[in-house]
């Protein structure tokens, strides 16, 4: 990923129109969702309840997206396993191994 730093996402000009606060909130929320799935892929995702408790200001929106997104993301990871390209390159092999370890709930055992 090229941008994982919340400050870089919100640092860009978002001054258009009258909804600065809304822009910042949308970017924050996006970053929280992104961080959650980064953690999930590394096998250290907190329970949705715990994550929400840490970010009460976004509680409702997080509950509205995380469970469904979680299913989507797991299936996306499966599609990655289907990609023949991940066979080549030992470095990518390492990435793949890490990815698989990150999916304890999926039942894949390597």
């Amino acid at each position: 990923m090229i941008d994982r730093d919340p400050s870089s996402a919100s640092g860009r000009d978002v001054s258009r129109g009258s909804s600065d606060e809304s822009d910042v909130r949308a970017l924050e929320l996006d970053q929280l969702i992104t961080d959650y799935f980064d953690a999930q892929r590394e096998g250290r995702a907190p329970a949705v309840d715990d994550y929400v408790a840490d970010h009460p200001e976004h509680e409702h929106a997080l509950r509205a997206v995380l469970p469904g997104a979680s299913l989507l993301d797991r299936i996306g990871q499966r599609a990655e396993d289907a990609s023949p390209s991940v066979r080549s390159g030992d470095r990518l092999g390492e990435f793949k191994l890490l990815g698989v370890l990150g999916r304890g709930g999926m039942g894949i055992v390597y």
Partner: protein
Amino acid sequence: MTLPDEDPFSEAAEHGDPEAVAEILEEFRGRIGRMLAVRMDPRLRGRLDASDVIQDTFLEVHDRIGDWRARGDLPFFLWVRFLAGQKLTQMHRKHLGTEQRDARRELPDALRSAPGATTATLAGALVASGVTPSEQIMRLEDESRLVKVLDDLRELDREVLALRHFEGLSNQEVARLLDIEPSAASRRYVRALARLQEKLRFSQQRGEPDLGDLRPGDLGPGDREAGA
């Protein structure tokens, strides 16, 4: 428009020799492979090797990198992804004679260069992932629910979700493809996720925890449905 300075790949590709460019392309291989995996028509599996598409794309990158440097306004990864998407579209035409589906005409140009991530291509990718039969049974239910729900989403919602979750693009990259501000891209993404979960609720089974939905104001005061 200048390249965002948080993109080290673009900077390295701008000044690098062919060897340096080749190294960057190796870094991209996994993500390009994912893009091909979720967009390749299942009828092409076994006839078309994604590795060959990637190889052809990388050769084209070396041939045409001067074009990319001359335009100077597109992150290097998105350009490489664009070329790979074009190659896949060409392969679809060559082997299947397919035209782009009508629905894709509603999408921004930058999203139409690659074939869509449809439920058919996604299902093909899942089958090709080669899980064991017992795992298959455990997952089948979730997957078939999700695939049905994805089918019901609007094309742009499905595309945004595919870009973020199947291809692993960042919000900045999606914003660039859609030619909108990152905050607007974030809103689209969150809304698409909320619509997905809302539809999942309808296919929900008893005993599962209740799924929440998005309320007015969750995306901040003064928020309005942008574009979509």
